[in-house]
């Protein structure tokens, strides 16, 4: 048949293209995972941030820590440090490092040596020492470390030999080891830092990262994707997936669409849970997270510097309705900032119940019987502690209008939102907190302590010396029941002063295809793709790819 007609040629071309052997793409997809993420990371170094989105993308993928959490009871196990020793007075801690840890080899860096004490010292001195050449790089803010007053705690880090280091602390601190196991205490490469200093491009250490983790960075397209390749010389068993791609999709419906159209294997913060459970080849999973969603006041701005006003508003919020509508009942009502899964949870803590008359009474007492206008900042993205802050703001707007308060809802893009909050531009806001580790201090300190007002993570700008004293005392002792007492006192102060109104403790959800196996989420901290593998789908060609056995090795990072 003559095919000179242009239409015929076109048809032939389409047939050829369509009939092409799809084997190539299939085997590619077998070796890779595509994860639909809800936002772009602010940086590739967890030391600089507290945002969950950034931690998810970087901490467990690119880096390791000295020690890690494992198991249901969250015991501390060795990671980069194979063992450690704490002196009796708790002020000197010695770590003995592994000798077989290799750094990433990437397009921009080739390591010539394995991990040693210099790398650990560099990673922590950068945070501690203001004169360190890398301290000011990328802004000089280390919010997590500044919140726990790391620089006051650690006097010195001493290098004993190439594989041994010793931390000298100014006081005993029960939280120190827990803090070293969080997602923020990552170990960077001192050799890479040296190379960057020479070429005068120091900021690349946070934008072109090098670490020891199971994956290394291959490509980052701002706002679109992050591509990770497997680190073949990982000190544990290398990861089973050759490639992990983060497909950055900020729209909830967009993520669900991609999941349903099989363009993503795993999706974060899924909506429409019923639709997912209806699909036979999708699974919905959840973890009960250590988190709290709250309504906070900027206590430096009138009228929220008046405690009566704050309490009044606390009586005016219908929390149960919020849980039913916004969280669709997938959350517990919060009586305090601690969820009941924390050991320091106290049944006795009183929280304000929904009572409009009491609210009006307190408002009149405070001198605002005719109400006032205020703005309420709500986040545009879904977070584990709040699936839809904009709608929650709308409901609170409706609630407050019943006591003559007019609310203007303000929102910005997520990173811009956080930035402006830390500058104190708001009057009130909806936000939350996900714990980094199971110690209750992780709730009390970063949200509400005086030092946290300086780093910007205490967006209420509330500073109460009595409260600070109590939580510091709670850190100094080892006695669990005594600590519980202190935290109960702290919660009473919070309930009286109401710098924020805790609303709910929610679960974190994730949706994945049925053929993806392995743990990704943990009750606290960021996600990890280290243990993930993919089953071959029944009707696809699979030559060597059989069901991968998922054997967790001796250490895993939650």
């Amino acid at each position, binding site marked *: 048949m003559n095919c000179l007609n242009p239409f015929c040629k076109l048809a032939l071309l389409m047939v050829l293209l369509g009939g092409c052997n799809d084997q190539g793409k299939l085997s590619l997809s077998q070796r890779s995972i595509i994860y639909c993420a809800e936002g772009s990371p602010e940086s590739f170094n967890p030391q600089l941030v507290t945002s969950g989105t950034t931690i998810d993308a970087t901490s467990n993928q690119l880096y390791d820590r000295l020690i890690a959490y494992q198991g249901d009871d969250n015991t501390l196990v060795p990671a980069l440090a194979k063992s450690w020793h704490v002196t009796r007075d708790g002020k000197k801690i010695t770590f003995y490092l592994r000798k077989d840890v290799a750094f990433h080899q990437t397009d921009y860096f080739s390591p010539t040596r394995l991990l040693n004490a210099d790398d650990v010292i560099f990673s922590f001195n950068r945070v501690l020492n203001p004169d360190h050449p890398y301290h000011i790089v990328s802004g000089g803010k280390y919010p997590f470390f500044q919140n726990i007053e790391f620089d006051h705690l650690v006097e010195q880090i001493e290098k004993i030999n190439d594989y041994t280091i010793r931390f000298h602390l100014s006081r005993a601190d029960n939280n120190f080891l827990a803090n070293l196991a969080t997602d923020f205490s990552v170990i960077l490469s001192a050799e890479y830092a040296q190379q960057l200093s020479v070429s005068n491009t120091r900021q690349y250490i946070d934008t072109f990262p090098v670490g020891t983790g199971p994956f290394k960075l291959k490509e980052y397209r701002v706002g679109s994707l992050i591509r990770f390749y497997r680190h073949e010389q990982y000190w544990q068993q290398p990861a089973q997936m050759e490639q992990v791609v983060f497909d950055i999709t900020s729209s909830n*419906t967009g993520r669900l669409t991609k999941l349903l159209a099989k363009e993503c294997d795993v999706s974060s913060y899924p*909506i429409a849970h019923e639709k997912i459970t209806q699909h036979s080849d999708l699974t919905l999973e959840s973890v009960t997270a250590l988190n709290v969603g709250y309504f906070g006041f900027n206590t430096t701005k009138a009228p929220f510097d008046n405690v009566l006003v704050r309490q009044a508003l606390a009586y005016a919020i219908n929390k149960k309705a919020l849980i039913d*509508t916004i969280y669709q009942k997938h959350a517990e009502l919060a009586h305090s900032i601690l969820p009941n899964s924390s050991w320091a949870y106290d049944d006795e803590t009183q929280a304000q119940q929904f009572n409009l008359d009491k609210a009006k009474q307190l408002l009149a007492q405070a001198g605002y019987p005719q109400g006032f206008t205020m703005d309420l900042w709500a986040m545009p993205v879904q977070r584990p502690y709040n699936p*839809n802050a904009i*709608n929650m*703001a*709308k409901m609170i707007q409706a609630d407050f209008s019943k006591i003559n308060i007019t609310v203007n*809802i303000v929102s910005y893009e997520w990173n811009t939102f956080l930035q402006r909050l830390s500058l104190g531009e708001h009057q009130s806001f909806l936000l939350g907190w996900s714990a980094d580790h199971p110690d209750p201090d992780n709730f009390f300190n970063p949200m509400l302590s005086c030092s946290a007002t300086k780093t910007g993570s205490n967006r209420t700008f509330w500073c109460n010396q009595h409260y600070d004293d109590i939580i510091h005392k709670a850190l100094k002792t080892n006695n669990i029941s005594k600590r519980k007492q202190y935290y109960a006192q702290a919660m009473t102060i919070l309930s009286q002063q109401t710098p924020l109104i805790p609303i709910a403790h929610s679960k974190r959800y994730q949706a994945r295809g049925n053929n993806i196996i392995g743990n990704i989420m943990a009750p606290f901290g960021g996600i990890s793709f280290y243990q993930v593998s993919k089953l071959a789908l029944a009707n696809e060609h699979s030559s060597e790819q059989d069901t991968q056995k998922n054997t967790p090795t001796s250490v895993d990072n939650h």
Partner: protein
Amino acid sequence: MARDKIYLEEVFPSPSMQLWINFRKTPVAMVGFSCFIFLVVLAVFGPLLAPHSAIEGQLNIPLLPPSWHKDGDVSYLLGTDELGRDMLSRLMYGTTFTFGLSFIVVIISLILGVVIGSLSALTTGIKSSFLNHFLDVILSIPSLLLAIIIVAILGPGIENTLWAVIMVSIPQFIHITRYAVKEEFRKDYVLASRLDGASPFRILHYSIFPNIVDRIMSQATLAQSAAILDIATLGFLGLGAQIPLPEWGASLANGLDLFYIAPWTVYLPGLAILFAVVSTNLVGEGIRHALKMRKER
């Protein structure tokens, strides 16, 4: 005694009446016209006629499907959204915003555009050339882009959207008025008036305007359908009406998250926009068709 008809026609319809008679003869245009009037009425009286509030929702009935569904409720004819707000009431209130505002936009930009256009048509020489180039530039920037710039400067909000869409619609009117006035100026009857010694304003008012009104009207409907789409698009992108105003584009964006569990929150505002634009276009088509018929007689 029967009156004899001396003249063939007792009444000579004026050009506008002729237009209206021709318009009435086209059934499709009349359908469009009635829809248009319906929307105008809704835009003005919607808030009074709507059964429920568009802003406060009943939180105990979120996501009710439309009443023809088995779970639906007749008192909430088109279902509710995630905060329990009645969709029908939202759409009716939204008519005021999307449709009503587009009407205001067209009227204001028409007045301003025609005034500037006719004044500029009287100029000649360098001023004229400068104006031409300036117009060319503005017309070559797409209207949505220009609207986005203006909103980026002024900030989001429905008042700023109004200003942005007005500023974007004015150039079209300037251009068409200029073109039409210049064309009329070349005609003989205007020459006759000029030879009589009439001032330019008098010529404009008595001779030219009555003859170009129709072209401006047809441009006005085009501008209105473009304005409806622009307002809705800006609302959809989050740059227009803010929470919780029930503007159609913003309602659609609101329903996006619920697309899978409550698709009617996306379908209904879209249908409303489609309905409004189609009726405006039908009216416009009818006017143009009637103009052509009048010319061909």
